[in-house]
């Protein structure tokens, strides 16, 4: 088990190294780093100063080491518009994004699992066809379009839901959260649901496919032959098998959810890191943009690592090194 985790950790570090190289060279070779780190009002002396400050007159491999060195210290430069370290801005905005993403995940599971189970239990029934059609739509329709329709229907036409912002928050363990105020929940509902749809579609498909496979397995037949109640068979014997691939996929997709949060946050003006990125792009606050990219890459690699470990904890065959 520890050997497995160590191996995974090493792989993750390798991917991270590759990604920093890619971002670094993307910034330095494809784009012009001076423009990425300079504000738009910067004149020639200012540019020269930035060039020496950034060490752009030095060889490229040396520049890379400086970049990595700063990165390791969590130093990704100052935001132009806010005048504070980019990293601290990200930490400040992160709870809102995580809150949104976690709520979306919970909604996706809470709705997707039962629907997937229903579709798996009676695959030819008309309800199953509707469920699968819904999952196909949720999967292919662009997220921003759904958000738009939700705003038109629930905010503009019906006036039930607020279309903008986070609402009241309360501080819990030093973090501001909307989840625990009525007004906050009211604001959270639409963006979280919109963000959850892609994952929901995925959960439905995976659950249904898993049900079709597991329900007809010999071990479920054996469990039935032993007179175990159907509810118990479903909730433990079947579910435990299905949850393994679902948890894995969701864990890997969580990074995607954070990325898609950019779309949802900008539609619903949700003050998270995604909205921050779009605002930063609009005013060309380049250090903030680079900081966001590096941050997301790190988070994504860490998530993949966590998922692998979680998967191995869930599946005894992997955990104990047996044959699959």
């Amino acid at each position, binding site marked *: 088990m520890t050997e497995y985790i160590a191996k995974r950790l090493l792989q993750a570090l390798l991917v991270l190294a590759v990604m920093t190289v890619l971002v670094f060279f993307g910034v330095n070779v494809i784009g012009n780093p001076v423009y990425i780190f300079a504000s738009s009002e910067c004149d020639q002396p200012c540019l020269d100063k930035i060039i020496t400050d950034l060490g752009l007159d030095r060889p490229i491999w040396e520049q890379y080491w400086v970049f990595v060195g700063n990165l390791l210290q969590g130093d990704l430069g100052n935001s132009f518009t806010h005048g504070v370290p980019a990293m601290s801005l990200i930490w400040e905005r992160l709870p809102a994004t995580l809150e949104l993403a976690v709520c979306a995940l919970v909604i996706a599971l809470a709705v997707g699992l039962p629907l997937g189970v229903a579709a798996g239990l009676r695959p030819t029934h008309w309800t199953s066809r509707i469920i699968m059609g819904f999952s196909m739509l949720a999967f292919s329709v662009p997220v921003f379009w759904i958000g738009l329709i939700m705003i038109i229907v629930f905010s503009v036409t019906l006036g039930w839901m607020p279309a903008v912002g986070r609402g009241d928050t309360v501080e819990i363990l030093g973090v501001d959260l909307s989840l625990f105020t009525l007004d906050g929940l009211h604001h959270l509902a639409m963006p979280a649901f919109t963000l959850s749809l892609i994952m929901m579609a995925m959960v439905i498909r995976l659950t249904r496919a898993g049900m079709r496979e597991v329900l007809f397995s010999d071990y479920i037949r054996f469990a039935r*032959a*032993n*007179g175990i109640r159907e509810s118990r068979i479903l909730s*433990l014997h079947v579910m435990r098998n299905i949850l393994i691939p679902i948890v894995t996929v969701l864990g890997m997709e969580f990074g995607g959810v954070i990325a898609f949060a950019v779309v949802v946050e900008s539609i619903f003006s949700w003050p998270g890191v995604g909205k921050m990125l779009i605002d930063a792009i609009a005013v060309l606050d380049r250090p903030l943009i680079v900081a966001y990219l590096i941050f997301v890459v790190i988070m994504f690699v860490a998530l993949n690592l966590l998922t692998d470990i979680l998967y191995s904890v869930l599946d005894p065959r992997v955990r104990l090194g047996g044959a699959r």
Partner: protein
Amino acid sequence: MSAPVVLEVENLNTSFLLPSGEVKALRDVSFQLRRGEILGLVGESGSGKSITGLSINGLLSPPGRVMSGSIRLHGEEITGLPHAAMRRLRGAKIAMVFQDPMMTLNPVLRIGVQMGDALRAHLRISERECRARSVAALEEVGIPAPEDRLNAFPHQLSGGMRQRVAVAIALLHRPDLVIMDEPTTALDVTIQGQILALVQKLCRERGTALIWITHDLAVVAGLAERILVMYAGRIVEDGAIDDVLDTPAHPYTSGLIDSVPSRAQRGQRLRQIPGRMPALTDLPEGCAFRPRCGFATEACAAPQALRALGGLGGRHVRCCHPLIPVPS
């Protein structure tokens, strides 16, 4: 001979209603089983052996359905019982073990959890009691260090051990009837022999009636008292095991016997029955084995009844010109 009857199956017809037509998996299957009796159910793959077992314990999955006929346990009709009542029978009165030991146990649940669920399906007992009973059951099937095994996952045990665990689970509630569907087919010969001996011993001790399903005549030869030969969903011959194996009455039974390795002459090639079993959708009237049979005549095209042969075993054959004389 006078032991009470546990199971009576009468004119059982089971079909799969597919869009392409009705697959008649079982047709007019009838037999009886007494307390402590061991019955071998043999036939080629696809002849309907597993479906017979599943029909009895009510685990046919749609589109499979018992169309008609009667299944009685201790004289009480169990076809058409409500789901809840049927569930209370399964595991408690009728148990079943399946072929592949790799797949009979849930790969992601500990052995102890699986045994505990099987126990609590019919009993309200404490965690402690549950564990004690599980350990005892594992001990009975000869599993070393049963305490530790309860915390193991199936993949940590060998194939033979897994099938022992499955047997232990099936016998947890001392059922009156156990159906073993080719439980040793996937195991190697020595392990197969051990499991065979174990099941035989446990059933003898407890007076459990046993249906042992196999396509391998050699396995039933040393185990069963009576044998039932199936072909294309029908019983073609039944009787006491020694009578049937020594003097088979149906050409199909004879063909099966000739294809058993140990019975063939040394150096001689095994004689496989030529041809394949027909599809079960539009079977003609008459003997389904006719196209493959060396003895077939015009008469075989007529519907065949199960005819009684003489002798103590209560032998029957479904053939119009059996290989041994029929008393008129």
